[in-house]
């Protein structure tokens, strides 16, 4: 069962289908949401675009859920998926290893793995449960695969894709057993 569904796209944010008041669009939308609704986690600025998107969505889902935050949780799973893995950041890193201008960026390279987004959420919330990133065809495929994952307790689940600053999409929710 899906609960506390949050959807974010470059044009706005929906919380359980209700639009949230936002002024900005694109990449600025995520910084606006961070400033308005989170504000106390400067690590956000160091994250790559996909992690920012997943992080903001997780904050919105967990605020709605309303349970006490930041206390160690042994069982909560984080399962995210998309079709392009970390391609957006991969290309940014690739630009730092040109033959002519070869200065590989370590801080970009660490984000060239899609599961870093699951790690950012686990770190923020002290979730010691399973964290997993899957690359699948589309959301429908994701829903089908999710049905096979055993759940002992509520999981944070999301489809997170970041193609560029004007083309991204995240839908995240709490999946109950």
């Amino acid at each position, binding site marked *: 069962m899906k609960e506390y569904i949050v959807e974010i796209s470059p044009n706005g944010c929906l919380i359980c289908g209700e639009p949230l008041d936002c002024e900005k669009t694109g990449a600025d939308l995520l910084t606006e949401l961070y400033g308005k609704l989170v504000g106390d986690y400067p690590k956000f600025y160091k994250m790559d675009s996909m992690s920012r998107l997943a992080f903001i969505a997780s904050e919105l889902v967990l605020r709605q859920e309303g349970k006490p935050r930041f206390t160690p949780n*042994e069982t909560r799973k984080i399962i995210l998926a998309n079709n392009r*893995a970390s391609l957006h950041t991969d290309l940014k890193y690739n630009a730092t290893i040109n033959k002519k201008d070869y200065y590989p960026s370590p801080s970009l*390279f660490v984000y060239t*793995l899609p599961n870093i987004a699951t790690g950012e959420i686990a770190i923020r919330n002290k979730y010691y449960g399973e964290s997993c990133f899957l690359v699948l065809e589309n959301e429908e495929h994701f829903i089908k695969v999710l*049905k*096979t994952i055993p759940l002992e307790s509520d999981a944070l689940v999301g489809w997170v894709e970041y193609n560029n600053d004007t083309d991204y999409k995240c839908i995240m929710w709490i999946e109950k057993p």
Partner: protein
Amino acid sequence: MVPLLRVLETIIKISDNIYSPLGNTTEENFSAVMSGISGLKKYYDMFDCVESFTASAMPTRMTFTQMCIESVSQALLGTDIDTTSANVIFVFSTTKGEDLQLWEPAVAVTRHFGNKNLPVIVSNACISGVSAQIMASRLLTAGIYKTAVVIGCDVLSKFIVSGFQSLKALSAEKCRPFAPDRDGLNLGEAAACMILSAVSESKNPNGWIYEVGSMHNDANHISGPSRTAEGSYRCLTDCLDKCNIENLAFISVHGTGTAYNDDMETLALHRAGLESKPILALKVYYGHTLGATGILETIISMQAVEKCMLPTTRTGIHGNSFIKMLSGFGGCNAAVRWSLKK
């Protein structure tokens, strides 16, 4: 998602293959390791990287798709599996796929074998190969498929080598896992494949049986392991559930040869009460093969148990089961326990 059901299906391994610089079959690979042959060599100008590096590379450049096809073809030899059947699922483990694409090459490999199902790709950094075994076991346990072709592969590239160099994670020489003077890891490339099948428990199947798998996050840092081994310790504890420790032959560790990883694993083993068990560390032979690691090292571990011999030290071992553990970026950790039933 399904609630936890009592598992009525047993997951068994039907076949496997390792396609690496040390050989094209599991047997060739195991005997190379037994003979102390390493794939690690020093490269001075591969990929135009500024610094030289030590790695285990295929004798000729091959693509991800080619490596996967070779490995799966070898694993299928001598089995009666019909990969065109709707009850066969392909599960991939990779970090960078081919030219930064993961989905398209995975679909290409799946279609090469005439399989029409959508593949499932696990991309959990260095733990992907163990995660893929866990995902495959779930897909089989859920009763949707009968057989899973689990493939792990990553190929060396300028992207990967320069990235690890930028993190100062590479040793210039051969890596020295658990040695006091270890100073980093070596990269490697390989493909490894395990074919898993669901068999009814009532049939009392023999052979390699998948007992348990577990994943936990450290909730600590995206690029450094937990100083207290939180995730890794939890994975080991899960794997010890219903395990007769006497029968545990050894722990197949990640053993990358970086200062922090090896310390963390040592602590995890102590916390789980496993400090007296032998460990198997294989990076000296293969380097860190990223998406292939979890599958490749599981297969070598199976060979070791079958032959009652730790290939690295050529010492005899007792017990019919082992744990394969891994940790990776994103704070992720995973472990699986397999046992051999004769």
